[in-house]
């Protein structure tokens, strides 16, 4: 129990419990249905991938605003290149493209000593522009053969009775959680964001750590785009628009501090769950859907205050 309380996703756990209790009280019959849970968890899974990547970058005291565009680019590349390279080929190329964008931005930030907010803001616009120019405004569909391809089904169908996106989320979150908490890389990542000078004095090559964080972030965003399209191949060039804001919100609600050095994978997933749950419940309660963004803003601010107080209470310097 003590370990859970001291864990960096504890704020998000409290948040999820509060959300579940409140939603159960005001809309028990609507909330606890198989359809609602499927709806909420499916989109939570997609957003979680982007949020987990964002969390890794935030832990290094940087930020990546380009994830929505990278998510879109990978998805568009996956569908557009499929006729030429087949499903497995286009999937690999799409992921390589996503990783390349992450690498390019990371090198610009690290080697150019530039603020990641500016560099990735440029990335957001540049990548979105590439999507528009590349597609000319329309993204065609998967062919009937591509939709039933085993690789498409592996990422877009059901695996072991659950939606593929949820299955892959469990797998990837578990791996990342272990990497973050039980490997030297995880320690270096948190040390880089926590106190860079101190980390470097202990031999941590913080530049490399940051580069890996950006690449992983873009890869996860790209993978989320591919998962989305394997499940629903009907898309548009707006794929991923504004997703960066939801991903950052999810990571921060999940316990990541923009001051770096603090955050967790499970927290990012729970943060995504809170964000998506709010959208569902507001619509279910009949609130205009444009209110959703207002509520995300309010929850975000409350979460930042709560997480900071919690961190201080637990003796962390923030």
């Amino acid at each position: 129990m003590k370990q859970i309380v001291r864990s960096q996703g504890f704020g998000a756990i409290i948040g999820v419990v509060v959300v579940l209790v409140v939603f159960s009280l005001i809309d028990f019959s609507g909330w606890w249905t198989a359809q609602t849970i499927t709806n909420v968890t499916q989109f939570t899974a997609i957003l979680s991938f982007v949020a987990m990547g964002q969390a890794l970058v935030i832990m290094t005291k940087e930020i990546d605003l380009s994830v929505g565009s990278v998510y879109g680019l990978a998805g568009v590349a996956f569908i557009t290149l499929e006729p030429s390279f087949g499903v497995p080929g286009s999937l690999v190329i799409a992921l390589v493209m996503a990783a390349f964008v992450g690498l390019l931005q990371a090198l610009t930030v690290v080697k150019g000593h530039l603020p990641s907010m500016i560099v990735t803001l440029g990335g957001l616009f540049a990548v979105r522009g590439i999507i528009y120019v590349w597609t000319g405004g329309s993204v065609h569909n998967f062919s009937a053969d591509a939709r039933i391809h085993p690789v498409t089904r592996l990422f877009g169908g059901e695996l072991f009775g659950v939606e593929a996106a949820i299955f892959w989320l469990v797998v990837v979150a578990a791996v990342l959680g272990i990497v973050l908490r039980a490997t030297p890389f995880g320690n270096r990542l948190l040390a880089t964001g926590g106190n860079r000078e101190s980390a470097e004095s202990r031999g941590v090559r913080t530049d490399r750590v940051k580069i890996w964080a950006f690449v992983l972030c873009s890869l996860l965003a790209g993978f989320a785009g591919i998962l989305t399209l394997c499940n629903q191949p009907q898309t548009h060039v707006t794929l991923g628009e504004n997703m960066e804001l939801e991903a950052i919100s999810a990571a921060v609600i999940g316990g990541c501090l923009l001051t770096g050095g603090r955050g967790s994978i499970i927290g990012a997933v729970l943060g995504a769950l809170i964000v998506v749950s709010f959208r569902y419940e507001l619509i279910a309660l009949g609130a205009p859907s444009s209110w959703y963004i207002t509520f995300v803003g309010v929850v975000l601010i409350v979460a930042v205050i709560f997480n900071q107080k919690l961190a201080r209470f637990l003796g962390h310097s923030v």
Partner: protein
Amino acid sequence: MKFRNSVLLSALMAATALGGIANAQDGEKQYRFVMVSHIGSNDPNMGWLTKSMEEFERKYPNVKTEYISTNNYSVQEHVRLLEQAISTQPDGIAVPIVSSDAFEGPLRKAIEAGIPVVAFNIPDGRPEGERIPYLTYVGGDEYLTGKKLGEYALEKAEAGEIPKPTHVVCASHDSAHQGLKARCAGMKDAMEKAGAKVDELFIGAEPATARNTLQSFLQANPDTNYIFTVAGWSSPWAWGVANEMKLDPDVDDKGVTVLTVDEGPVSIEGVRAGHVLATNSQGFWLQGYAPMEWLYWNKEFGYAPQSYILTGPVIINKDNADKWAELVRGVFGDKAYDEQNTW
């Protein structure tokens, strides 16, 4: 290009005749007209406008047309783009009045500075006298688009071909777009007369978020049996969500009925495949060509039309969708048409 629309042909013939007159004159003045659009490269409908403007340039070689647009459904960005365009002192501007309040200032300044303005696609919806004093409006009637589609659906429901509406959701990707709001208002007026409840839902333009939002709405409102998507490209998302929820969204006498807009490949193929009951044409081709023509006639001869020029709506249903597909293939080409079909 095979244009079967008689209105389109009339316009082209008139354009050809006047183009001939214009070309016959020596020492012609050179003009530069700018279309400042909200239909960006993220919207396949842009092709209608740019292709018709290319056609216009071929007819009037002394006119250079420019098409500039936003991509992210932001009124503020559109206004900035408009202000930039005005600062280049063009000989005429065509612009959709996405927001009367936001566009009023820059457009009145432009008109006062002697730049003729034609509104296209979306008019200033305010009463006469309060409107921005543009030359004319060329485009569909957004309110009528929703109303006529609604009335068409009610006719089919009366005939027993589709279910009678109980709850209609108007799914919009841009909550600030007054043209989309007018479409929803038209649908609302038609459907409420038949006793159906109508809700407007802001789903956004991002596909996964839009699906999630719409799915949430359908779960929370299980009596919803009509979905009206106010963009053609979001109709496959609506159909996909309803299909995934096993709500039987194909056009038949049970389940959910999907209605959409536009004469793009997605909408037309949705109708042909039996996924969408009907869509509409707002005469996009003419919306690119005719504003340029009126700007030209105004600059060259001082002509000013005395009324709005409506280019739609025209209902596209299963009876005429094949002919529309042929027409659109003629404009976009087979390859682009097939690529834009996202069903």
